[in-house]
Protein backbone atom coordinates (compact mmCIF):
# COMPACT_ATOMS: atom_id res chain seq x y z
CA UNK A 1 0.00 0.00 0.00
CA UNK A 2 2.71 2.40 1.03
CA UNK A 3 4.66 1.47 -2.05
CA UNK A 4 1.75 2.29 -4.31
CA UNK A 5 1.21 5.75 -2.86
CA UNK A 6 4.94 6.34 -3.00
CA UNK A 7 4.96 5.37 -6.65
CA UNK A 8 2.03 7.66 -7.30
CA UNK A 9 3.69 10.72 -5.79
CA UNK A 10 6.87 9.77 -7.62
CA UNK A 11 4.95 9.73 -10.92
CA UNK A 12 3.33 13.01 -10.07
CA UNK A 13 6.64 14.70 -9.37
CA UNK A 14 8.02 13.28 -12.60
CA UNK A 15 5.02 14.66 -14.47
CA UNK A 16 5.42 18.14 -13.00
CA UNK A 17 9.13 18.16 -13.78
CA UNK A 18 8.34 17.13 -17.35
CA UNK A 19 5.80 19.95 -17.70
CA UNK A 20 8.26 22.47 -16.27
CA UNK A 21 10.95 21.36 -18.70
CA UNK A 22 8.51 21.62 -21.64
CA UNK A 23 7.50 25.08 -20.47
CA UNK A 24 11.03 26.44 -20.15
CA UNK A 25 12.26 24.83 -23.36
CA UNK A 26 9.35 26.05 -25.47
CA UNK A 27 9.50 29.61 -24.13
CA UNK A 28 13.23 29.72 -24.75
CA UNK A 29 12.72 28.32 -28.24
CA UNK A 30 9.99 30.74 -29.22
CA UNK A 31 12.05 33.76 -28.22
CA UNK A 32 15.01 32.56 -30.29
CA UNK A 33 13.38 30.87 -33.28
CA UNK A 34 13.98 33.58 -35.87
CA UNK A 35 16.32 31.30 -37.79
CA UNK A 36 13.42 28.95 -38.53
CA UNK A 37 11.44 31.57 -40.39
CA UNK A 38 12.00 32.14 -44.08
CA UNK A 39 10.66 35.68 -43.84
CA UNK A 40 13.05 38.34 -42.51
CA UNK A 41 12.42 39.31 -38.88
CA UNK A 42 13.57 42.57 -37.32
CA UNK A 43 13.54 43.71 -33.74
CA UNK A 44 12.73 47.36 -33.07
CA UNK A 45 15.52 49.13 -31.19
CA UNK A 46 14.55 52.79 -31.59
CA UNK A 47 11.37 54.67 -32.44
CA UNK A 48 10.97 58.34 -33.06
CA UNK A 49 7.77 60.31 -33.56
CA UNK A 50 8.21 62.58 -36.55
CA UNK A 51 4.79 63.90 -37.34
CA UNK A 52 1.27 64.02 -35.91
CA UNK A 53 -1.89 65.35 -37.51
CA UNK A 54 -5.55 65.34 -36.73
CA UNK A 55 -7.67 63.75 -39.39
CA UNK A 56 -11.41 63.87 -39.82
CA UNK A 57 -13.22 61.90 -42.49
CA UNK A 58 -16.41 62.68 -44.39
CA UNK A 59 -18.56 61.30 -41.56
CA UNK A 60 -16.99 63.70 -39.02
CA UNK A 61 -15.10 60.94 -37.21
CA UNK A 62 -12.03 62.46 -35.65
CA UNK A 63 -8.80 60.60 -35.31
CA UNK A 64 -5.13 61.33 -34.77
CA UNK A 65 -2.55 60.21 -37.27
CA UNK A 66 1.07 59.76 -36.29
CA UNK A 67 4.18 58.97 -38.27
CA UNK A 68 7.06 57.24 -36.57
CA UNK A 69 10.56 56.48 -37.74
CA UNK A 70 11.70 53.04 -36.69
CA UNK A 71 15.17 51.65 -36.41
CA UNK A 72 15.34 47.89 -36.16
CA UNK A 73 17.96 45.22 -36.29
CA UNK A 74 17.57 42.14 -38.49
CA UNK A 75 17.50 38.86 -36.61
CA UNK A 76 17.80 36.30 -39.39
CA UNK A 77 18.71 35.80 -43.02
CA UNK A 78 21.77 36.98 -44.90
CA UNK A 79 21.66 40.49 -43.52
CA UNK A 80 21.47 39.33 -39.90
CA UNK A 81 22.77 41.93 -37.46
CA UNK A 82 22.39 44.92 -39.78
CA UNK A 83 20.15 47.87 -39.02
CA UNK A 84 17.05 48.51 -41.08
CA UNK A 85 14.89 51.64 -41.21
CA UNK A 86 11.15 52.02 -41.64
CA UNK A 87 8.56 54.72 -41.46
CA UNK A 88 5.21 53.75 -40.03
CA UNK A 89 1.98 55.66 -40.02
CA UNK A 90 -0.63 54.80 -37.42
CA UNK A 91 -3.86 56.16 -36.03
CA UNK A 92 -4.92 56.31 -32.41
CA UNK A 93 -7.90 54.04 -33.11
CA UNK A 94 -5.69 51.39 -34.71
CA UNK A 95 -8.33 49.54 -36.72
CA UNK A 96 -5.86 48.44 -39.35
CA UNK A 97 -2.54 49.93 -38.27
CA UNK A 98 -0.55 50.10 -35.08
CA UNK A 99 2.18 51.84 -33.18
CA UNK A 100 5.40 49.87 -32.73
CA UNK A 101 7.48 49.92 -29.59
CA UNK A 102 11.07 49.11 -28.76
CA UNK A 103 11.42 45.34 -28.41
CA UNK A 104 8.64 44.41 -30.84
CA UNK A 105 9.61 41.76 -33.35
CA UNK A 106 8.28 42.32 -36.86
CA UNK A 107 8.07 40.44 -40.11
CA UNK A 108 9.47 42.72 -42.80
CA UNK A 109 10.50 42.82 -46.42
CA UNK A 110 13.88 44.24 -47.35
CA UNK A 111 14.05 46.55 -50.32
CA UNK A 112 16.60 45.37 -52.81
CA UNK A 113 19.41 47.84 -53.20
CA UNK A 114 22.32 47.95 -55.62
CA UNK A 115 24.60 49.78 -53.23
CA UNK A 116 26.02 47.28 -50.76
CA UNK A 117 26.84 49.83 -48.08
CA UNK A 118 23.64 51.86 -48.18
CA UNK A 119 21.23 51.77 -45.25
CA UNK A 120 18.67 49.00 -45.51
CA UNK A 121 15.05 50.03 -45.81
CA UNK A 122 11.88 48.03 -46.21
CA UNK A 123 8.25 47.65 -45.26
CA UNK A 124 6.64 46.10 -42.19
CA UNK A 125 4.39 43.14 -42.96
CA UNK A 126 3.16 41.91 -39.62
CA UNK A 127 4.01 41.42 -35.97
CA UNK A 128 5.65 38.25 -34.70
CA UNK A 129 3.06 36.98 -32.26
CA UNK A 130 4.02 33.37 -31.63
CA UNK A 131 5.59 34.10 -28.24
CA UNK A 132 2.33 35.62 -26.95
CA UNK A 133 0.27 32.73 -28.28
CA UNK A 134 2.62 30.31 -26.56
CA UNK A 135 2.62 32.12 -23.21
CA UNK A 136 -1.16 32.43 -23.12
CA UNK A 137 -1.34 28.76 -24.10
CA UNK A 138 0.83 27.85 -21.12
CA UNK A 139 -1.25 29.96 -18.76
CA UNK A 140 -4.30 28.13 -20.11
CA UNK A 141 -2.63 24.74 -19.59
CA UNK A 142 -1.52 25.62 -16.05
CA UNK A 143 -4.97 26.96 -15.14
CA UNK A 144 -6.63 23.77 -16.39
CA UNK A 145 -4.10 21.52 -14.66
CA UNK A 146 -4.19 23.33 -11.33
CA UNK A 147 -7.97 23.58 -11.15
CA UNK A 148 -8.95 20.43 -13.03
CA UNK A 149 -6.02 18.10 -12.16
CA UNK A 150 -6.70 14.82 -13.99
CA UNK A 151 -9.82 16.07 -15.75
CA UNK A 152 -7.96 19.20 -16.78
CA UNK A 153 -5.22 17.10 -18.34
CA UNK A 154 -7.79 15.02 -20.21
CA UNK A 155 -9.57 18.07 -21.58
CA UNK A 156 -6.26 19.48 -22.81
CA UNK A 157 -5.51 16.17 -24.51
CA UNK A 158 -8.96 16.10 -26.08
CA UNK A 159 -8.54 19.67 -27.39
CA UNK A 160 -5.19 18.79 -28.95
CA UNK A 161 -6.41 15.55 -30.53
CA UNK A 162 -9.53 17.26 -31.86
CA UNK A 163 -7.53 20.09 -33.45
CA UNK A 164 -5.23 17.59 -35.12
CA UNK A 165 -8.26 15.70 -36.48
CA UNK A 166 -9.79 18.94 -37.76
CA UNK A 167 -6.57 20.02 -39.40
CA UNK A 168 -6.23 16.66 -41.16
CA UNK A 169 -9.83 16.78 -42.29
CA UNK A 170 -9.44 20.26 -43.76
CA UNK A 171 -6.26 19.21 -45.57
CA UNK A 172 -8.19 16.32 -47.01
CA UNK A 173 -10.98 18.65 -48.13
CA UNK A 174 -8.68 21.24 -49.69
CA UNK A 175 -6.60 18.67 -51.56
CA UNK A 176 -9.34 16.39 -52.84
CA UNK A 177 -12.89 16.50 -54.12
CA UNK A 178 -14.56 14.72 -51.23
CA UNK A 179 -17.79 16.36 -50.09
CA UNK A 180 -17.21 18.62 -47.08
CA UNK A 181 -20.41 17.57 -45.35
CA UNK A 182 -19.31 13.93 -45.53
CA UNK A 183 -15.87 14.80 -44.11
CA UNK A 184 -17.51 16.78 -41.33
CA UNK A 185 -19.84 13.89 -40.59
CA UNK A 186 -16.85 11.61 -40.03
CA UNK A 187 -15.18 14.34 -37.97
CA UNK A 188 -18.26 14.74 -35.80
CA UNK A 189 -18.22 11.00 -35.09
CA UNK A 190 -14.55 11.18 -34.11
CA UNK A 191 -14.93 14.39 -32.08
CA UNK A 192 -17.86 13.01 -30.13
CA UNK A 193 -16.13 9.73 -29.38
CA UNK A 194 -12.78 11.28 -28.45
CA UNK A 195 -14.13 14.10 -26.29
CA UNK A 196 -16.74 12.15 -24.40
CA UNK A 197 -14.55 9.12 -23.73
CA UNK A 198 -11.68 11.34 -22.57
CA UNK A 199 -13.93 13.45 -20.35
CA UNK A 200 -15.96 10.62 -18.93
CA UNK A 201 -14.23 7.26 -19.49
CA UNK A 202 -15.60 4.14 -21.14
CA UNK A 203 -18.92 3.30 -19.50
CA UNK A 204 -22.67 3.18 -20.01
CA UNK A 205 -23.01 6.87 -19.18
CA UNK A 206 -20.66 7.77 -22.03
CA UNK A 207 -22.47 5.52 -24.49
CA UNK A 208 -25.78 7.16 -23.63
CA UNK A 209 -24.21 10.61 -24.13
CA UNK A 210 -22.56 9.64 -27.44
CA UNK A 211 -25.81 8.30 -28.91
CA UNK A 212 -27.73 11.38 -27.73
CA UNK A 213 -25.10 13.77 -29.11
CA UNK A 214 -25.08 12.16 -32.53
CA UNK A 215 -28.86 12.05 -32.77
CA UNK A 216 -29.17 15.64 -31.52
CA UNK A 217 -26.62 17.10 -33.94
CA UNK A 218 -27.95 15.23 -36.95
CA UNK A 219 -31.58 16.15 -36.25
CA UNK A 220 -30.74 19.82 -35.67
CA UNK A 221 -28.68 19.88 -38.86
CA UNK A 222 -31.58 18.36 -40.79
CA UNK A 223 -33.95 20.98 -39.36
CA UNK A 224 -31.60 23.81 -40.31
CA UNK A 225 -31.11 22.40 -43.79
CA UNK A 226 -34.86 22.11 -44.19
CA UNK A 227 -35.36 25.70 -43.03
CA UNK A 228 -32.72 26.93 -45.48
CA UNK A 229 -34.39 25.01 -48.27
CA UNK A 230 -37.96 26.10 -47.46
CA UNK A 231 -37.05 29.78 -47.19
CA UNK A 232 -34.60 29.55 -50.11
CA UNK A 233 -32.03 31.19 -47.83
CA UNK A 234 -33.90 34.45 -47.77
CA UNK A 235 -32.23 36.79 -45.29
CA UNK A 236 -28.82 35.14 -45.15
CA UNK A 237 -26.02 37.32 -46.43
CA UNK A 238 -22.89 35.44 -47.36
CA UNK A 239 -20.86 38.57 -48.12
CA UNK A 240 -18.64 38.13 -45.08
CA UNK A 241 -17.44 34.82 -46.49
CA UNK A 242 -16.54 36.43 -49.80
CA UNK A 243 -12.82 35.98 -49.32
CA UNK A 244 -13.32 32.27 -49.98
CA UNK A 245 -13.00 30.97 -53.48
CA UNK A 246 -15.03 27.89 -52.63
CA UNK A 247 -18.76 27.15 -52.44
CA UNK A 248 -19.46 28.99 -49.21
CA UNK A 249 -22.92 27.52 -48.62
CA UNK A 250 -21.47 24.11 -47.93
CA UNK A 251 -18.79 25.58 -45.71
CA UNK A 252 -21.42 27.49 -43.79
CA UNK A 253 -23.42 24.30 -43.22
CA UNK A 254 -20.28 22.46 -42.09
CA UNK A 255 -19.52 25.28 -39.64
CA UNK A 256 -23.06 24.98 -38.33
CA UNK A 257 -22.55 21.25 -37.85
CA UNK A 258 -19.30 21.56 -35.88
CA UNK A 259 -20.33 24.70 -34.00
CA UNK A 260 -23.41 23.10 -32.49
CA UNK A 261 -21.59 19.90 -31.59
CA UNK A 262 -19.85 21.17 -28.45
CA UNK A 263 -23.03 22.56 -26.94
CA UNK A 264 -25.00 19.44 -27.77
CA UNK A 265 -22.29 17.30 -26.16
CA UNK A 266 -22.40 19.51 -23.09
CA UNK A 267 -26.14 18.99 -22.69
CA UNK A 268 -26.09 15.26 -23.27
CA UNK A 269 -23.19 14.57 -20.89
CA UNK A 270 -24.73 16.75 -18.17
CA UNK A 271 -28.07 14.96 -18.53
CA UNK A 272 -26.51 11.48 -18.65
CA UNK A 273 -24.24 12.14 -15.65
CA UNK A 274 -26.99 13.41 -13.41
CA UNK A 275 -29.48 10.70 -14.40
CA UNK A 276 -26.93 7.94 -13.81
CA UNK A 277 -26.08 9.54 -10.47
CA UNK A 278 -29.77 9.43 -9.52
CA UNK A 279 -29.93 5.77 -10.52
CA UNK A 280 -26.80 4.89 -8.53
CA UNK A 281 -28.20 6.56 -5.43
CA UNK A 282 -31.43 4.61 -5.70
CA UNK A 283 -31.35 1.49 -7.88
CA UNK A 284 -35.12 1.01 -7.65
CA UNK A 285 -36.03 4.44 -8.99
CA UNK A 286 -38.91 4.28 -11.46
CA UNK A 287 -38.66 5.39 -15.09
CA UNK A 288 -41.26 8.03 -14.41
CA UNK A 289 -39.29 9.56 -11.55
CA UNK A 290 -36.14 9.53 -13.68
CA UNK A 291 -38.01 11.27 -16.46
CA UNK A 292 -39.31 14.05 -14.24
CA UNK A 293 -35.97 14.80 -12.61
CA UNK A 294 -34.17 14.54 -15.95
CA UNK A 295 -36.55 17.09 -17.43
CA UNK A 296 -35.92 19.43 -14.50
CA UNK A 297 -32.18 19.23 -15.05
CA UNK A 298 -32.66 19.81 -18.77
CA UNK A 299 -34.75 22.91 -18.17
CA UNK A 300 -32.00 24.29 -15.93
CA UNK A 301 -29.20 23.91 -18.45
CA UNK A 302 -31.21 24.88 -21.54
CA UNK A 303 -31.00 28.64 -21.07
CA UNK A 304 -27.37 28.92 -20.03
CA UNK A 305 -25.97 26.70 -22.76
CA UNK A 306 -27.90 28.46 -25.54
CA UNK A 307 -26.65 31.79 -24.23
CA UNK A 308 -23.04 30.53 -24.32
CA UNK A 309 -23.51 30.00 -28.05
CA UNK A 310 -25.17 33.38 -28.58
CA UNK A 311 -22.39 35.27 -26.86
CA UNK A 312 -19.61 33.41 -28.66
CA UNK A 313 -21.06 34.02 -32.10
CA UNK A 314 -22.35 37.54 -31.78
CA UNK A 315 -19.36 39.04 -29.94
CA UNK A 316 -17.08 38.14 -32.84
CA UNK A 317 -18.77 40.66 -35.10
CA UNK A 318 -18.51 43.64 -32.74
CA UNK A 319 -15.46 45.23 -34.48
CA UNK A 320 -17.10 45.02 -37.92
CA UNK A 321 -20.41 46.38 -36.64
CA UNK A 322 -18.67 49.40 -35.16
CA UNK A 323 -16.75 50.05 -38.37
CA UNK A 324 -19.95 49.93 -40.44
CA UNK A 325 -21.88 52.14 -38.04
CA UNK A 326 -19.09 54.72 -37.85
CA UNK A 327 -19.09 54.88 -41.63
CA UNK A 328 -22.77 55.84 -41.55
CA UNK A 329 -23.90 52.61 -43.12
CA UNK A 330 -27.67 52.06 -42.88
CA UNK A 331 -28.49 50.14 -39.70
CA UNK A 332 -30.64 47.44 -41.27
CA UNK A 333 -28.03 46.57 -43.84
CA UNK A 334 -25.22 46.66 -41.27
CA UNK A 335 -27.03 44.13 -39.15
CA UNK A 336 -28.02 41.78 -41.95
CA UNK A 337 -24.56 41.90 -43.53
CA UNK A 338 -22.68 41.21 -40.33
CA UNK A 339 -25.01 39.25 -38.11
CA UNK A 340 -27.22 37.05 -40.28
CA UNK A 341 -24.79 34.12 -40.44
CA UNK A 342 -23.81 34.40 -36.78
CA UNK A 343 -27.43 34.52 -35.67
CA UNK A 344 -28.31 31.55 -37.86
CA UNK A 345 -25.44 29.58 -36.29
CA UNK A 346 -26.50 30.50 -32.78
CA UNK A 347 -30.16 29.70 -33.45
CA UNK A 348 -29.38 26.36 -35.08
CA UNK A 349 -27.13 25.50 -32.14
CA UNK A 350 -29.89 26.49 -29.73
CA UNK A 351 -32.34 24.24 -31.54
CA UNK A 352 -29.83 21.40 -31.23
CA UNK A 353 -29.40 22.04 -27.51
CA UNK A 354 -33.12 22.09 -26.77
CA UNK A 355 -33.82 18.99 -28.90
CA UNK A 356 -31.04 17.06 -27.21
CA UNK A 357 -32.73 17.36 -23.82
CA UNK A 358 -35.54 14.85 -24.52
CA UNK A 359 -33.26 12.74 -26.72
CA UNK A 360 -30.63 12.28 -24.02
CA UNK A 361 -33.41 11.73 -21.49
CA UNK A 362 -34.60 8.67 -23.41
CA UNK A 363 -31.15 7.34 -24.33
CA UNK A 364 -30.11 7.59 -20.66
CA UNK A 365 -33.23 5.73 -19.55
CA UNK A 366 -32.56 3.10 -22.22
CA UNK A 367 -28.99 2.52 -21.04
CA UNK A 368 -30.02 2.60 -17.37
CA UNK A 369 -32.59 -0.11 -18.05
CA UNK A 370 -30.00 -2.17 -19.87
CA UNK A 371 -27.72 -1.87 -16.86
CA UNK A 372 -30.63 -2.77 -14.58
CA UNK A 373 -31.38 -5.91 -16.57
CA UNK A 374 -27.83 -7.17 -16.12
Amino acid sequence: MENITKKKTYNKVLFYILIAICFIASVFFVYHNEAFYARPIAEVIKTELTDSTTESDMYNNEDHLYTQRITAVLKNGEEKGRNIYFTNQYSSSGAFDQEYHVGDKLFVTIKASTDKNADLTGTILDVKRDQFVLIVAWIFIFALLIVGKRQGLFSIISLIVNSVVLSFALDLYVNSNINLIFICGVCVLLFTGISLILINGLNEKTYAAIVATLLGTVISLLISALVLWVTSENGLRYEEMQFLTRPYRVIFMAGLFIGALGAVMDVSITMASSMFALFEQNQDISDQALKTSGMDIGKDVMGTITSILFFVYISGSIPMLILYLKNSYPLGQTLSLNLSLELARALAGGIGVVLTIPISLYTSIFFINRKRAK
Partner: protein
Amino acid sequence: MNVLVLLTAILFILMIVIGGKKGVRSFLSLFLNFGVLFITIFLMTNPKNSPVILTLIACTVICWISLFFINEMSSKTITAFISTMITIVILLLFIVFVTEKSMLRGFGGESTEEISIFSLYIGVNYVQIGASVIIMSTIGAILDVAISIATSIHEILHHNPLISRKKLFTSGLSIGKDILGTDTNTLFFAFFGGYLSLLIWFKDLSYSIGEIINSKVFSTEIIMIFCAGIGIALIIPITSSVNAYYLIKKREKTENAS
Protein backbone atom coordinates in the same frame (compact mmCIF):
# COMPACT_ATOMS: atom_id res chain seq x y z
CA MET B 1 -40.00 33.87 -45.38
CA ASN B 2 -36.80 34.86 -43.63
CA VAL B 3 -34.44 32.13 -42.42
CA LEU B 4 -33.75 33.85 -39.12
CA VAL B 5 -37.41 34.43 -38.35
CA LEU B 6 -38.24 30.81 -39.03
CA LEU B 7 -35.30 29.52 -36.96
CA THR B 8 -36.23 31.83 -34.09
CA ALA B 9 -39.82 30.62 -34.23
CA ILE B 10 -38.71 26.98 -34.14
CA LEU B 11 -36.38 27.65 -31.20
CA PHE B 12 -39.13 29.48 -29.34
CA ILE B 13 -41.67 26.69 -29.88
CA LEU B 14 -39.18 24.02 -28.84
CA MET B 15 -38.26 25.94 -25.72
CA ILE B 16 -41.91 26.27 -24.72
CA VAL B 17 -42.73 22.61 -25.44
CA ILE B 18 -39.71 21.25 -23.60
CA GLY B 19 -39.04 23.90 -21.00
CA GLY B 20 -42.52 25.19 -20.22
CA LYS B 21 -42.50 28.39 -18.20
CA LYS B 22 -38.77 28.19 -17.69
CA GLY B 23 -38.33 27.85 -21.46
CA VAL B 24 -40.23 31.10 -22.06
CA ARG B 25 -38.03 32.84 -19.53
CA SER B 26 -34.84 31.45 -21.09
CA PHE B 27 -35.96 32.65 -24.50
CA LEU B 28 -36.82 36.10 -23.16
CA SER B 29 -33.47 36.39 -21.45
CA LEU B 30 -31.70 35.53 -24.73
CA PHE B 31 -33.65 38.34 -26.32
CA LEU B 32 -32.83 40.79 -23.52
CA ASN B 33 -29.14 39.87 -23.57
CA PHE B 34 -29.10 40.45 -27.28
CA GLY B 35 -30.61 43.88 -26.67
CA VAL B 36 -27.98 44.71 -24.05
CA LEU B 37 -25.22 43.68 -26.43
CA PHE B 38 -26.67 45.95 -29.10
CA ILE B 39 -26.97 48.98 -26.89
CA THR B 40 -23.38 48.40 -25.80
CA ILE B 41 -22.21 48.32 -29.41
CA PHE B 42 -24.03 51.57 -30.13
CA LEU B 43 -22.48 53.25 -27.12
CA MET B 44 -19.06 51.99 -28.20
CA THR B 45 -19.29 53.95 -31.45
CA ASN B 46 -18.86 57.11 -29.42
CA PRO B 47 -15.08 57.57 -29.04
CA LYS B 48 -15.58 59.34 -25.71
CA ASN B 49 -16.80 56.12 -24.05
CA SER B 50 -14.20 53.61 -23.01
CA PRO B 51 -15.12 50.21 -24.50
CA VAL B 52 -13.68 48.35 -21.50
CA ILE B 53 -15.81 50.27 -18.99
CA LEU B 54 -18.85 49.78 -21.23
CA THR B 55 -18.14 46.05 -21.38
CA LEU B 56 -17.93 45.87 -17.62
CA ILE B 57 -21.30 47.59 -17.28
CA ALA B 58 -22.82 45.39 -19.98
CA CYS B 59 -21.52 42.27 -18.22
CA THR B 60 -23.11 43.39 -14.97
CA VAL B 61 -26.45 43.89 -16.70
CA ILE B 62 -26.19 40.55 -18.52
CA CYS B 63 -25.38 38.72 -15.27
CA TRP B 64 -28.26 40.50 -13.61
CA ILE B 65 -30.68 39.37 -16.30
CA SER B 66 -29.43 35.78 -16.51
CA LEU B 67 -29.22 35.24 -12.76
CA PHE B 68 -32.07 37.20 -11.26
CA PHE B 69 -34.52 36.93 -14.13
CA ILE B 70 -34.28 33.23 -15.06
CA ASN B 71 -33.67 32.16 -11.48
CA GLU B 72 -35.18 34.27 -8.73
CA MET B 73 -33.15 36.46 -6.38
CA SER B 74 -31.82 34.13 -3.69
CA SER B 75 -28.61 33.53 -1.78
CA LYS B 76 -27.71 31.10 -4.58
CA THR B 77 -27.90 33.67 -7.36
CA ILE B 78 -26.37 36.43 -5.25
CA THR B 79 -23.23 34.39 -4.59
CA ALA B 80 -23.10 33.42 -8.27
CA PHE B 81 -23.37 37.11 -9.19
CA ILE B 82 -20.58 38.17 -6.85
CA SER B 83 -18.21 35.47 -8.05
CA THR B 84 -18.95 36.17 -11.72
CA MET B 85 -18.16 39.85 -11.26
CA ILE B 86 -14.86 39.09 -9.46
CA THR B 87 -13.82 36.71 -12.23
CA ILE B 88 -14.73 39.14 -14.99
CA VAL B 89 -12.71 41.95 -13.47
CA ILE B 90 -9.63 39.73 -13.07
CA LEU B 91 -10.01 38.26 -16.55
CA LEU B 92 -10.56 41.70 -18.09
CA LEU B 93 -7.31 43.02 -16.61
CA PHE B 94 -5.48 39.98 -17.93
CA ILE B 95 -7.01 40.26 -21.40
CA VAL B 96 -6.35 44.00 -21.74
CA PHE B 97 -2.73 43.27 -20.85
CA VAL B 98 -2.48 40.44 -23.40
CA THR B 99 -4.15 42.32 -26.27
CA GLU B 100 -2.00 45.37 -25.59
CA LYS B 101 1.20 43.32 -25.63
CA SER B 102 0.44 41.07 -28.57
CA MET B 103 -1.00 43.87 -30.71
CA LEU B 104 -4.18 42.00 -31.45
CA ARG B 105 -6.56 44.59 -32.64
CA GLY B 106 -8.66 45.62 -35.57
CA PHE B 107 -8.97 43.62 -38.72
CA GLY B 108 -6.85 40.95 -40.34
CA GLY B 109 -5.88 40.19 -43.90
CA GLU B 110 -9.02 38.26 -44.78
CA SER B 111 -11.23 41.33 -44.56
CA THR B 112 -9.00 43.72 -46.50
CA GLU B 113 -11.29 43.61 -49.49
CA GLU B 114 -14.45 44.11 -47.49
CA ILE B 115 -13.22 47.11 -45.52
CA SER B 116 -11.36 48.81 -48.35
CA ILE B 117 -14.39 51.01 -49.04
CA PHE B 118 -14.48 52.30 -45.48
CA SER B 119 -12.75 55.08 -43.68
CA LEU B 120 -10.64 53.40 -41.01
CA TYR B 121 -9.77 56.49 -39.01
CA ILE B 122 -12.87 56.44 -36.88
CA GLY B 123 -11.43 57.41 -33.52
CA VAL B 124 -12.65 54.34 -31.63
CA ASN B 125 -10.06 52.50 -29.58
CA TYR B 126 -9.68 49.12 -31.25
CA VAL B 127 -7.31 47.68 -28.66
CA GLN B 128 -10.00 47.93 -26.04
CA ILE B 129 -12.63 46.64 -28.42
CA GLY B 130 -10.50 43.54 -28.96
CA ALA B 131 -10.51 42.96 -25.21
CA SER B 132 -14.29 43.50 -25.07
CA VAL B 133 -14.87 40.91 -27.76
CA ILE B 134 -12.95 38.29 -25.81
CA ILE B 135 -14.69 38.96 -22.51
CA MET B 136 -18.14 39.10 -24.13
CA SER B 137 -17.69 35.76 -25.81
CA THR B 138 -16.73 34.14 -22.52
CA ILE B 139 -19.40 35.60 -20.28
CA GLY B 140 -21.98 32.94 -21.15
CA ALA B 141 -19.68 30.12 -20.10
CA ILE B 142 -18.52 31.87 -16.92
CA LEU B 143 -22.12 32.41 -15.86
CA ASP B 144 -22.93 28.78 -16.57
CA VAL B 145 -20.14 27.54 -14.29
CA ALA B 146 -20.99 30.04 -11.54
CA ILE B 147 -24.64 29.07 -11.37
CA SER B 148 -23.98 25.31 -11.55
CA ILE B 149 -21.46 25.37 -8.70
CA ALA B 150 -23.57 27.69 -6.54
CA THR B 151 -26.59 25.41 -7.00
CA SER B 152 -24.69 22.25 -6.12
CA ILE B 153 -22.97 23.76 -3.07
CA HIS B 154 -26.33 24.93 -1.73
CA GLU B 155 -27.69 21.45 -2.35
CA ILE B 156 -24.79 19.84 -0.46
CA LEU B 157 -25.22 22.16 2.50
CA HIS B 158 -28.93 21.43 2.52
CA HIS B 159 -28.34 17.66 2.74
CA ASN B 160 -25.45 17.97 5.13
CA PRO B 161 -25.92 21.06 7.32
CA LEU B 162 -22.89 20.47 9.56
CA ILE B 163 -20.28 20.31 6.80
CA SER B 164 -17.10 22.34 7.32
CA ARG B 165 -16.08 25.26 5.15
CA LYS B 166 -13.08 23.45 3.74
CA LYS B 167 -15.17 20.41 2.76
CA LEU B 168 -17.72 22.69 1.10
CA PHE B 169 -14.95 24.37 -0.85
CA THR B 170 -13.40 21.09 -2.05
CA SER B 171 -16.75 19.67 -3.09
CA GLY B 172 -17.31 22.86 -5.09
CA LEU B 173 -13.97 22.28 -6.79
CA SER B 174 -14.77 18.67 -7.67
CA ILE B 175 -18.10 19.69 -9.25
CA GLY B 176 -16.22 22.37 -11.11
CA LYS B 177 -13.78 19.84 -12.56
CA ASP B 178 -16.63 17.99 -14.26
CA ILE B 179 -17.96 21.19 -15.82
CA LEU B 180 -14.50 22.40 -16.85
CA GLY B 181 -14.07 19.72 -19.49
CA THR B 182 -17.47 20.05 -21.09
CA ASP B 183 -17.55 23.84 -21.11
CA THR B 184 -14.12 24.26 -22.67
CA ASN B 185 -15.33 21.76 -25.25
CA THR B 186 -18.46 23.79 -25.97
CA LEU B 187 -16.46 26.96 -26.53
CA PHE B 188 -13.82 25.17 -28.55
CA PHE B 189 -16.26 23.73 -31.05
CA ALA B 190 -18.29 26.93 -31.23
CA PHE B 191 -15.14 28.86 -32.13
CA PHE B 192 -14.08 26.30 -34.67
CA GLY B 193 -17.52 26.22 -36.25
CA GLY B 194 -17.47 29.99 -36.51
CA TYR B 195 -13.98 30.18 -37.95
CA LEU B 196 -14.17 27.17 -40.24
CA SER B 197 -14.19 29.38 -43.33
CA LEU B 198 -11.04 31.14 -42.13
CA LEU B 199 -9.25 27.86 -41.53
CA ILE B 200 -10.15 26.70 -45.03
CA TRP B 201 -8.89 30.01 -46.36
CA PHE B 202 -5.53 29.45 -44.68
CA LYS B 203 -5.32 25.94 -46.08
CA ASP B 204 -6.26 27.18 -49.55
CA LEU B 205 -3.46 29.71 -49.55
CA SER B 206 -1.21 26.96 -48.16
CA TYR B 207 0.06 29.07 -45.30
CA SER B 208 2.83 27.48 -43.29
CA ILE B 209 2.28 26.82 -39.58
CA GLY B 210 4.53 29.75 -38.74
CA GLU B 211 2.53 32.10 -40.92
CA ILE B 212 -0.78 30.88 -39.48
CA ILE B 213 0.29 31.25 -35.86
CA ASN B 214 1.63 34.76 -36.38
CA SER B 215 -1.29 36.02 -38.45
CA LYS B 216 -3.58 38.44 -36.71
CA VAL B 217 -6.85 36.57 -37.25
CA PHE B 218 -5.64 33.17 -36.16
CA SER B 219 -3.71 34.38 -33.13
CA THR B 220 -6.73 36.42 -32.06
CA GLU B 221 -8.93 33.37 -32.36
CA ILE B 222 -6.61 31.02 -30.53
CA ILE B 223 -5.88 33.52 -27.75
CA MET B 224 -9.64 33.97 -27.45
CA ILE B 225 -10.10 30.23 -26.91
CA PHE B 226 -7.32 30.15 -24.33
CA CYS B 227 -8.64 33.20 -22.47
CA ALA B 228 -12.10 31.66 -22.40
CA GLY B 229 -10.62 28.47 -20.94
CA ILE B 230 -8.66 30.46 -18.37
CA GLY B 231 -11.87 32.27 -17.41
CA ILE B 232 -13.70 29.00 -16.88
CA ALA B 233 -10.85 27.57 -14.82
CA LEU B 234 -10.60 30.78 -12.81
CA ILE B 235 -14.23 30.96 -11.79
CA ILE B 236 -14.25 27.47 -10.26
CA PRO B 237 -12.10 28.22 -7.18
CA ILE B 238 -13.51 31.76 -6.94
CA THR B 239 -17.13 30.71 -6.89
CA SER B 240 -16.41 27.75 -4.58
CA SER B 241 -14.71 29.95 -2.00
CA VAL B 242 -17.29 32.75 -2.25
CA ASN B 243 -20.10 30.25 -1.74
CA ALA B 244 -18.38 28.40 1.09
CA TYR B 245 -17.52 31.64 2.86
CA TYR B 246 -20.98 33.14 2.47
CA LEU B 247 -22.89 30.02 3.49
CA ILE B 248 -20.80 29.30 6.57
CA LYS B 249 -21.08 32.95 7.64
CA LYS B 250 -24.83 32.67 7.24
CA ARG B 251 -24.95 29.44 9.24
CA GLU B 252 -22.91 30.96 12.07
CA LYS B 253 -25.25 33.92 12.17
CA THR B 254 -28.36 31.77 12.54
CA GLU B 255 -26.58 29.63 15.15
CA ASN B 256 -25.71 32.70 17.20
CA ALA B 257 -29.21 34.03 16.92
CA SER B 258 -30.83 30.87 18.23
